């Protein structure tokens, strides 16, 4: 007797709908076991992770703030992944966007520059992120170099560039030698939505991005092309769709969104440029994209959920001394379960009895 995988005649819509929920359920069971191994009370830990952050206004706002970059990056990545282009360097594009936008903030610091500063920063950040993403895209299309490896290598390069700038030319002269720029001027800062709160304009931009992606994928020819090239490359070739052009397009869009997310994070919650502005947003966004089934609305929900794990992780660390790495383990396990459950949309398990098969002589 053997358990084997068998292709379904049709994709199962029921499983497509419930698979993210099953994945989250399995992850929570696994985490319960992990907490027990770590010697923490699992119920209290789960409460700190998933319930406590939902009970006060500050944490709720903080979840939206953390979800903003995750959702923006993941929307861009979902376009890439739908078109079968593997951009895994969003972290680098995020950092380059932050650097490109900060350039204006640093150069106009202390001058009487007007309200054009923030819009210009956003535009430059998007352009910077897009150009940085175009490097692996062009290397892929022109020379056939694996975009997975090149985009990932460029993450380390972006990290070092940012490090150089804030330790060298852009360092705050009054910053006690800390590697950081001076605090941005008010005209170079993303405005808050509620005075004294945490929620900022970036969250509105993220919602607009979600809506735009939903329209692009659901209502336009370009969106259709992206989906066909990824799902059925042969059919796309017969249809005359140019897959190279789509690799360039999806990389540029996802780079621009990651770059925009980068400057919004720096000019919003952080307030200045420094190393470590991202707790791995670019990589967590990969999980967000898959958990959201590469669907804009799904990504919005998934982004909020993963933001909850960041905040919950911080609270669990403070309240129960649970190491922050548990959050990363949690995110990794979640991605595994999501992928495994997704597999059951296309396949199903079947028990086979090899002996009987041989006897009947069929296959």
């Amino acid at each position, binding site marked *: 007797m053997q358990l084997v995988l068998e292709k379904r005649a049709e994709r199962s819509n029921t499983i497509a709908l419930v698979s993210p929920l099953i994945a989250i359920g399995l992850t929570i069971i696994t985490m319960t076991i992990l907490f027990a191994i770590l010697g923490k009370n699992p119920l209290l830990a789960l409460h700190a992770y998933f319930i406590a952050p939902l009970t006060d206004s500050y944490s709720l706002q903080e979840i939206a703030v953390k979800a903003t970059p995750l959702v923006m990056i993941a929307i861009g990545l979902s376009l890439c992944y739908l078109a079968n282009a593997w951009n895994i360097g969003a972290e680098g594009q995020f950092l380059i966007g932050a650097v490109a936008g900060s350039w204006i903030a640093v150069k106009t610091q202390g001058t009487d520059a007007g309200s054009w500063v923030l819009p210009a920063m956003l535009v430059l950040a998007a352009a910077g992120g897009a150009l940085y993403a175009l490097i692996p895209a062009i290397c892929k299309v022109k020379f056939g170099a694996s975009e997975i490896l*090149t985009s990932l290598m460029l993450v380390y*390069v972006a990290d070092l560039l940012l490090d150089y700038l804030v330790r060298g030319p852009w360092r705050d002269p009054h910053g006690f030698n800390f590697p950081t720029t001076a605090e941005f001027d008010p005209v170079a800062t993303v405005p808050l939505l509620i005075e004294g709160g945490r929620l900022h304009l970036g969250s509105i931009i993220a919602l607009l991005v979600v809506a735009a992606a939903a329209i692009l994928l659901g209502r336009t020819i370009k969106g259709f092309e992206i989906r066909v090239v990824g799902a059925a490359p042969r059919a796309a070739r017969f249809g005359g769709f140019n897959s190279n052009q789509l690799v360039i397009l999806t990389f540029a869009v996802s780079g621009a969104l990651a770059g925009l997310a980068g400057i919004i994070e720096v000019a919003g919650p952080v307030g200045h440029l420094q190393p470590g502005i991202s707790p791995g947003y670019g990589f967590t966004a990969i999980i967000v994209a*898959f958990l959201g089934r590469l669907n804009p609305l799904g990504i919005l929900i998934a982004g909020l959920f993963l933001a909850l794990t960041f905040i919950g992780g911080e609270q669990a660390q403070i309240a129960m001394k649970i*190491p922050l790495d548990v959050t990363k383990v*949690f995110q990794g*396990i979640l991605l595994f379960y999501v992928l495994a459950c997704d597999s059951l949309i296309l396949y199903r398990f079947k028990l086979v009895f090899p002996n009987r098969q041989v006897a009947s002589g069929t296959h």
Partner: protein
Amino acid sequence: MELIEAIILAVLAASTPLLIAATGELVTERSGVLNLGVEGMMIVGAACGFGGAWLTGSIFIGALFGIVAGTLMSLVFALMALGLAVNQVATGLALTILGVGLSGLIGAGFVGERITPAAHLYIPGLTDIPLIGRVLFGEDAFVYFSLALIVGIWWFLYRTRAGLILRACGDNHVSAHALGYPVLRIRTFAVMFGGGCAGLAGAYLPLAYTPFFIPGMTAGRGWIALALVVFSSWRPGRLVVGAYLFGAVTILQLHAQGWGVGIPSQLMSALPYLATVIVLVLLSRARTGGSTAPAALGTVFVPDR
């Protein structure tokens, strides 16, 4: 003279983890499976390897811990990518994300601890020969093992029947299956071998390269190992050349930083990563006449019955 000897020794030490991890991945990819989780398996290997050596005081047991940890990680990958036919790129990424978190969790207990690093060979007379003595006869066991490993793998892939079957699975899994070879089982073994090598390569870092563990100490070496496999055109001989070239780039940039040439240290640190991108572009470009990659690399296989 002494400086040249020191540089060569440092290059060998920096290349060895790349060579071991890339050898494992070469075998995995030759069977048709693309496991992008090398970085994750390496970092878990580093944490477990150091833990093993620190608890028992034995470098050998530490190395074994690293191998076992890497193999276990690769089994998770095999279960997903081979058992459940999940997209291999996504699964590999998940493995790396999980590995980074797990290693932090495992390693948290012994950050800041030190061990006695792996001993170096010493043969009186031979090791004392100037310039080449220490390079040839004064390395640690990992360096010699990595070279034996790659020779063994060359022999296995090109001179044994099992190696031929493994390559057949990587080039055309449908035909291999039709001939009656258990494609998924062979691939599982190849993935496990890759995991064991990645775990050992990770363990090398805290056991021999630096005698302590820091989170994230693999610093992208797993990804560079993946690039090396592409660089080698999936051939063991070229893999050795590639690994030592990259080791040399890493060490030269470190020395250049020490000499204080007027270049920002961050640019020098970025060199190995930039070099990887440039090399990938140049090689892929030179290969316009058709890819040398295993034909079935990264594709899902679900046997029909």
